[in-house]
């Protein structure tokens, strides 16, 4: 009997250890190292001293916190837009379609993700640039008489971000909406509700965990995105991850870069926590 117990324990250890090792080696240790690096300052060549300077730099130099603020606001906006576009799509896929058509539409949402994000972003660049497809099309139709530049602005960034995040909103929404019993919707109509009331009082409350988990995923992906804002935003892109990249790679300032990285982690967690509080959802419920 005791042998059984022991082997059960061993099995548990064997099962858990890859995960524990993974977490410790690739998540916990690097982050500890990053905190340590962020808390030092170069005083002379190859000499470092303890300092909070890298963190105070973020709050005292308007450039950095403004960049963060801009990134956060645009990410929230992108999340909202993605939700707005993805909700009707998901509802249509989950509730209005049956069988093969449903699968086909779902696959259509998935297909763009078979190529890498870089390729998708370059696709948008080909469409939007001054000598690109849209500009030529508009000229051909006679709507404009000279090339129009649609790339390198905030709208282009937004388009790219929403496009990139679409799938991560559609999947959780479709799953939660599918679990909603159709008879509940019918009952709501039978009891005299109109479209708006049914959506507001029956569909959305049921879909809330899906909405919130989709929003969290999209928000974090957008906030941590590097490629899309840099390539589509051009000279005014100003994304916080770009700032981190610059500190690490072109300025060799790992200390500042690590501090920015930790700040991004903490501040984005705070924003997600606020979002959960506002929507009265708990993290465990949303993620399971």
């Amino acid at each position, binding site marked *: 009997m005791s042998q059984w117990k022991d082997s059960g324990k061993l099995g548990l250890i064997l099962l858990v250890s890859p995960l524990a090792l993974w977490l410790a080696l690739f998540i916990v240790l690097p982050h500890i190292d990053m905190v340590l690096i962020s808390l030092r300052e170069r005083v002379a060549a190859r000499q470092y001293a303890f300092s909070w300077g890298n963190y105070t730099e973020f709050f005292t130099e308007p450039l950095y916190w403004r960049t963060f603020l801009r990134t956060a606001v645009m990410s929230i906006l992108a999340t909202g837009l993605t939700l707005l576009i993805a909700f009707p799509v998901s509802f249509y896929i989950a509730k209005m379609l049956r069988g093969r058509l449903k699968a086909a539409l779902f696959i259509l949402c998935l297909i763009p993700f078979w190529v890498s994000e870089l390729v998708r972003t370059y696709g948008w660049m080909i469409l939007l*640039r001054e000598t690109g497809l849209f500009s030529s099309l508009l000229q051909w139709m006679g709507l404009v008489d000279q090339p129009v530049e649609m790339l390198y602005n905030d709208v282009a960034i937004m388009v790219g971000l929403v496009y990139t995040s679409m799938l991560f909103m559609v999947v959780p929404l479709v799953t939660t909406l599918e679990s909603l019993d159709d008879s509940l919707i019918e009952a709501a109509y039978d009891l005299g509700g109109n479209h708006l009331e049914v959506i507001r009082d029956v569909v959305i409350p049921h879909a809330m965990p899906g909405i919130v988990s989709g929003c969290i995923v999209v928000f974090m992906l957008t906030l941590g995105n590097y490629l899309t804002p840099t390539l589509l935003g051009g000279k005014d892109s100003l994304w916080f991850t770009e700032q981190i990249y610059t500190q690490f790679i072109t300025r060799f300032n790992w200390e500042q870069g690590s501090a920015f990285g930790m700040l991004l982690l903490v501040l984005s967690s705070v924003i997600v926590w606020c979002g959960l509080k506002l929507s009265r959802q708990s993290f465990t419920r949303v993620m399971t």
Partner: protein
Amino acid sequence: MKRLLKKSTLILASALAMSSQLHAETLRLLTWGGYAPQEVVDQFEKETGIKVDVTKSNNEDMISKLRATRGAGFDLAQPSQDRITSAQADFDIYKPIDLSKIDANRFISSMLEATKKNTAFNGEVYGVPHVWGTSGLVVNRKQAKGVMDYTDLCQSALSGQVSYRLKRPTLIGFAYALGEDPFAAYSDTKKYGEILAKVEKKLIDCKSNVKAYWSGGDELLNLMRSGEVKAAMAWDAGGWKLNSENPDITFVAPKSGALGWIDTFALPRKTKAEEAAYKWINFVMQPEVAAKITEAAGNFTASKGGDKFVNPKLKAQFNESFPPADVDNIKWYPPVPPGLEEMEGKVLDRVKAAQS
């Protein structure tokens, strides 16, 4: 069980031995695009049996990569000569060059001496020259006739049609065009700060003229090719490449002086194939091989007699862009003292964030 263990240890050991053996036959080269053309790599492998593993990079990326591994992962790197001593002082990523293993006769001696001097740190030499060139202006002569100097990129006629990088060469170029001498101020932090402040203001004023800040060479070539950008600050080789496709576009040496750089060979501190690295250096400095690299990279090398084998077109392009007086006016980068790049970084950040 024991036998199995023994067997597997044996297999593991032999696998390790094999991999290290394979390793010794490979030269991991950290370099720029065009500096190790396939033809030259194949020829080297044929003659020496050593495989060359080429990683394309740039100055900042090289330092970052080597810093992350404390000088491991590559056997030979090619940073610019002005970026070696400060990186060595701060991060200790290179190893001194054993000059006795270099065939000095294959180098243009003035260039070799200058590079030895500029890459000396604590009495040891860390770099020997390979490819040299300049950065200046690439101009579409039909559409942007008036662009003769860096600051001409800010002419209102070119609004939204110019491009440059947000990196240190831009700061240096603009400083010269504004009548300053930034290289002379390298050792005077206060004076250098004043110059940078002046440049920062100019670059912020100029921002509305910029279509996009380019970051990779191909990106700029595409912007110029499509005609979306009429004038840019860029490397000479890019300008000549465009010139071969479209005679209207070419490289122009700015009035205040083109900025001259020399890319070197430097040994990462934990190089695993030092002998192969020296073999490669001596191999590519042969005039015939150097000429092939010039063809691929578009820039001339420090190989003595190498320019004899270069095709006449590139020479003609060079002579057109550089009348003799402009060659004398080239401003060669002196070694960057540590600390300056941090000041420059903040200026670049503020320019990037400014609203145009």
